[in-house]
């Protein structure tokens, strides 16, 4: 990806390491009181065919802060698709009303399909359990911001590693930088085999653990926490038992050496104790806020407003 201009952001799989670095450095520039108004005169359609208030507001805020205008669908029931219009027709029509489409859709591959149906850039804001590239990009930016580099770091991921789209994409991205990865999960929610095979192909060192205690001596730079969903377990008692063992407390941080940065894609339920919130280790709210400059950077890059 030499230039981002007029390109769609559909999947982390389409991006090279250089492209990821470009987004991260542009995000840093935007966040550090960088250029404003680079979306002036540009209109962005934010189409959410599946509700996700947080991500939608974050995109809308990013457009407005960059000087652009925004319209969209927040509720799929209000769209003409509910009247039976085909997805392809909706996208082709709306593409004529705007300069960029941001799309969230429950169907896997919907964003890719949309990007092929029109000549304007499409940004994937989540396509079912498949990809959510802007989440991965804001995660990378947060790691860079907190640790000072994206290479040669030790990252642990804990929780539901089997179904968690966020950790799959982040693993893929971190592997491009040759980082050492640790996966901590109950045996039933382990990182899928095909992802581990990819790491093996790339000769990326990784470890698998069942308990957080086993990572005590690893000197992790980042611990990325994800929620374990109750519905993944048939037996509610089994869920309580498992979820409890991965709860991050002040003791966990101390056990991990005291320096580890705790990240989480949010929303959190109880997998991180609120007592952690006020420590310098907690970066999850900052991480969520970094969604704004990251999305601003992407909007600027694909419209050519940022180079």
């Amino acid at each position: 990806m030499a230039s981002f201009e007029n390109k769609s952001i559909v999947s982390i799989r389409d991006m090279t390491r250089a492209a990821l670095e470009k987004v991260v450095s542009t995000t840093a520039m935007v966040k550090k009181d960088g250029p404003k108004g680079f979306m002036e005169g540009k209109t962005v359609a934010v189409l959410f065919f599946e509700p996700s208030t947080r991500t939608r507001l974050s995109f809308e805020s990013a457009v407005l802060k960059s000087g652009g205008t925004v319209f969209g669908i927040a509720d799929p029931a209000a769209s003409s698709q509910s009247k039976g219009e085909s997805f392809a027709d909706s996208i082709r029509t709306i593409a004529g009303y705007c300069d960029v489409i941001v799309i969230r859709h429950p169907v896997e591959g919907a964003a890719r399909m949309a990007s092929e149906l029109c000549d304007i850039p499409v940004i994937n804001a989540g396509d079912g359990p498949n990809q959510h590239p802007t989440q991965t990009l804001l995660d990378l930016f947060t790691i860079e911001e907190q640790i000072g580099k994206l290479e040669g770091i030790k990252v642990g991921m804990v929780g539901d590693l089997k179904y968690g789209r966020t950790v799959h994409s982040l693993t893929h991205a971190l592997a491009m930088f040759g980082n050492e990865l640790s996966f901590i999960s109950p045996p039933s929610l382990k990182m899928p085999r095909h992802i581990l095979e990819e790491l093996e192909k790339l000769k990326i060192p990784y470890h698998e653990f069942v308990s957080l205690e086993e990572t005590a001596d690893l000197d992790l730079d980042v611990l990325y926490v994800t929620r374990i969903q109750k519905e993944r377990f048939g037996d509610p008692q089994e869920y309580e038992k498992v979820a409890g063992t991965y709860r991050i407390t002040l003791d966990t941080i101390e056990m991990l050496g005291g320096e580890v940065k705790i990240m989480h894609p949010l929303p959190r339920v109880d997998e991180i104790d609120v007592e952690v919130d006020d420590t310098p280790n907690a970066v999850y709210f900052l991480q969520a806020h970094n969604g704004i400059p990251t999305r601003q950077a992407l909007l600027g890059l694909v419209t050519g407003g940022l180079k």
Partner: protein
Amino acid sequence: MTGRTYKVYSIENGTVIDHIPTPLALKVIRILGLENEGIMTIGIGFRSSMLPKGKDIVKVENRELSRAETDMIALIAPDATINIIKNGMVAEKRKIKLPEEINGVMTCPNPNCATNVLGANTSFHLEDREKVTYRCRYCERVTPIHPDLLTTG
């Protein structure tokens, strides 16, 4: 009679696809979209030292299949052999290999994929040549090739 009696007569010009495992000959024809492409001879269930269940042969007259076309055969019959015949002679013996991309001939097994729900045209990229797996362009899931997924079958 001293000469060998051919069960499938030889062709003057065209393409011979041999060593197709029985009974995949018709599937090979469908995957190549050759149903309405002129004269073809199909032999099914010949004895073969390499294929215990027997082999099928397809002879396509007056049509030299391109490499892109013959590579599609590798999806269901990776050990098939291709001979291009010109003026009654074998002009080229061709090995086939799995195509890098396959478009429009395989269904994605993921029911939530845009190809199954929103009407996107199917497209896969070769993921692992040894394991014979392909990655869906849309849902990005990796799937092993299975004859049942081939829409032409």
